[in-house]
């Protein structure tokens, strides 16, 4: 550590390839980066960019075969880990280099209490039982696990996602590692929880002086947390440097595109000026949905007296964290759940208990786009069968001989080509699949499309493309959207009006610009502050 050129971890010219059915795939090419103690390096990239490969090589986690390291070295304090013995690698893993993952439920053993699992890290290194337990408790208290002493013997499933990530962090830092690798540690978490976990990571790093390697697709996290950033695309590092420099003056075209794609950085959408003149499509009043629970506790209200309207041509954003009832709202409006109270109408037709003729109208006029396009498209149907299914259900709309032509038209409208009709969903990328799902939603020429987290499983740049598509389709077809999301920047760049939901209630609603610049409810303010992209300007 005395020499200037000796970094804590240094990766030099690493190239890794994988042998697959379709031939050899270059996962990363000539990747070089380094990290020192007390420093945070972020590797930023979209899915498939190879951002996790170099850290896997560092931990010795690349399966060989099918993987093959073709060139380069991975140095830990000057020692090449690619040449290190298996025993040496194991000695370093966990104690000197530790890692936390995205999926905490999978990473913790479901059959042991969490306290036992943290203490196991110590016991494995020869610490006595009593001592291990007390040090485990100390750690759990350090990572601010609420009520750590009482919950020491609880099992992983009894904790929330954020709490489990805290437990994972406790296990990772147990042996005082030099380097902590965090692979998308907060992707599955709500924004306010994410903000608290990131703050904890930052504090721990400062306290222990370890290096923090953050692997993420989220530019907001990079901006708020990292000192330096390496931007990866297609297996190569396209740009690297201090975060401020890279983000303010990006040199590579890919970085510029990525930064431009981030929602919420541009101005607000120009909302139509005269809201009063537009007619109301959907009116919801005092809608409630309670789930009967066990005899002891009271009824859980998934929706609690929700009232709002959707005007023609409007995009209504619904934001809230998981469990806030925003998906239940969509399911209730579509008749998948029975409401316990209240009314909902579409152009004066009852949506909650429609007559059979009304139901046909509703099924035609209100469509839905789901979060995960992989799950929402039947894998055994061709794209043509998927898109023409609405016509097969509502026979009167389009004669069968016209299906083929219309499918082609729809595919072109959503930015795919006619030849794609005979393929199956798995032959497309995530963004393309979502386009197919949107084409299916358009097939019946609806007036309203409900998007339930429709872009949240997609990469940032793809997200921007889908949002742009939704915007252009809206003008073309005179659509109205109910756009459900947990991602505030996306809603900010897309919605005309926003509802903020919490525990089944609407805590605030208003025009997007008003709500984001002048939030009234404390919960809205908290949400805005915890968002890594929006947080800055609000706090300032």
């Amino acid at each position, binding site marked *: 550590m005395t020499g200037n050129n000796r970094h804590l971890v240094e990766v030099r010219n690493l190239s890794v390839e994988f042998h697959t059915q379709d031939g050899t795939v270059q996962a990363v090419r000539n990747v070089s980066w380094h990290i020192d103690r007390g420093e945070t390096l972020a590797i930023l990239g979209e899915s498939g960019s190879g951002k996790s490969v170099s850290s896997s090589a560092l931990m010795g986690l690349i399966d060989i075969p099918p993987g093959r390291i073709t060139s380069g070295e991975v140095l830990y304090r000057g020692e090449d880990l690619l040449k290190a013995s298996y025993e040496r690698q194991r000695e370093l893993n966990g104690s000197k280099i530790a890692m936390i993952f995205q999926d905490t439920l999978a990473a913790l053993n479901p059959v042991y209490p969490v306290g036992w699992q943290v203490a196991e890290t110590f016991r494995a290194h020869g610490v006595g039982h009593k001592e291990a337990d007390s040090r485990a408790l100390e750690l759990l208290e350090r990572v601010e696990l609420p009520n750590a002493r009482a919950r020491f013997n609880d099992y992983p499933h009894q904790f929330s996602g954020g709490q489990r990530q805290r437990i994972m962090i406790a296990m990772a830092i147990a042996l005082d590692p030099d380097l902590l690798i965090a692979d998308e540690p907060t992707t599955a978490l709500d924004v306010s929880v994410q903000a608290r976990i990131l703050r904890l990571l930052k504090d721990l790093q400062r306290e222990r002086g370890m290096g923090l390697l953050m692997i993420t697709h989220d530019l907001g996290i990079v901006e708020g947390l990292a000192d330096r950033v390496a931007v990866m695309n297609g297996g190569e590092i396209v740009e690297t440097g201090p975060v401020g420099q890279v983000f303010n003056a990006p040199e590579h075209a890919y970085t510029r595109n990525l930064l431009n794609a981030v929602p919420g950085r541009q101005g607000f959408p120009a909302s139509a000026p005269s809201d009063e003149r537009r007619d109301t499509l959907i009116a919801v009043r005092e809608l409630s949905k309670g789930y009967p629970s066990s005899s002891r506790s009271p009824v859980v209200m998934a929706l609690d007296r929700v009232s709002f309207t959707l005007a023609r041509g409007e995009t209504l954003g619904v934001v809230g964290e998981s469990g806030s009832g925003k998906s239940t709202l969509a399911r209730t409006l579509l008749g*998948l759940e029975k409401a316990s109270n209240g009314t909902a109408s579409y152009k004066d037709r009852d949506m909650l208990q429609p007559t059979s003729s009304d139901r046909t109208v509703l099924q035609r006029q209100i469509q*839905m786009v789901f979060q995960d396009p992989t799950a929402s*498209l*039947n*894998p055994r149907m061709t794209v043509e069968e998927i898109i023409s*299914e609405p016509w097969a259900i509502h026979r009167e709309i389009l004669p069968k001989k016209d299906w083929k032509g219309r499918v082609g038209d729809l595919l072109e409208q959503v930015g795919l080509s006619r030849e794609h009709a005979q393929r199956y969903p798995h*032959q*497309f990328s995530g963004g393309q699949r979502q386009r197919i799902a949107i084409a299916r939603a358009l097939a019946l020429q609806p007036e309203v499309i409900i998007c339930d987290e429709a872009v949240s499983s997609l990469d940032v740049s793809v997200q921007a493309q889908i949002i742009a598509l939704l915007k252009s389709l809206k003008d073309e077809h005179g659509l109205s959207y109910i756009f459900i999301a947990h991602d505030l920047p996306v809603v900010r760049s897309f919605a005309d009006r926003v509802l903020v939901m919490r525990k089944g209630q609407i805590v605030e609603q208003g025009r997007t610009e008003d709500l984001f610049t002048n939030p009234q409810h404390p919960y809205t303010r908290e949400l805005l502050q915890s968002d890594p992209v929006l947080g800055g300007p609000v706090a300032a």
Partner: protein
Amino acid sequence: MSTIVTPGSRPNRSAVHRYLLLLWHDKFATAAVMFLLLVFFAALFGPALFESASNRINLLARNAPPLSFQHGWTFILGADSLGRSILLRLIVGAQNTMLLAASAVVCSLLVGSFLGFIAGYRNDWTSAVIMRVADVVMSFPSLLLALIVLYVLTPGIANVILVLAITRIPIYLRTTRAEVLEVRERTFVTAARIMGASPRRLIWRHIRPTVTPTLITIATLEFAFVMLSESSLSFLGLGIQPPAFTWGAMVAQGQSYLSTAWWVAFWPGVAITLTAMSLNLFANWLRIVGDPVQRWRLESRKKTS
């Protein structure tokens, strides 16, 4: 994506040709299909051609050992205790065996999966009733049930089929119900429901294609089970009645000579095993071909070869 061979990219080839090509790339499946064709033709034409020859008693050739041409080519697999050619009896017996096993399997498959779809899709009191009845059938040892039924009714091919079909219905029923319960909650089913698809369409277009591969695989395994169950019934004298016979009955008949003439029970046993295995390999191929996500396994082999 452009590397994937899409159906229709070779318009000059017919569908039959394409499937034959896909079959050819799974060598095990090809062998299995060839064997099954052999069995099929034996079942179709065997009795017409060799009925009398297979019943001809030749006391000189009693328990003649296999792999010898001493008594002519028909005795290549040896002879049974009455000196009848085992090879010819296998060919002739194929008809009864296949008829019996196929009917029993198809009956229980159809009834079982139909009830399973109802139980899984409705998941209310009808489901409860269906499942409890299935439990009752399951809790009864199937052989005992068969004994009682066949004792009351007269033993004969139709009744044997009936008994074997009824005792195996719960297998399909329970599997189907479990799969349907899972598949109906998938997002693509919900998506179709929102569009207003009728229950019939949901089940037929979305749930059934997902569940079918599992059912086909179970059915091929059941095929062997049914053939062997029938042999136990024959052993107890309640199966198919002489002079009609099946492979199962041949196994049962050879049991008493196991120490002196093992081939009498061995060859019909081999026939049963090979048939069951071939069906299974064929079902496996069918599953891959029917699944668009898996089909590339066969197609990519086509490209490299």
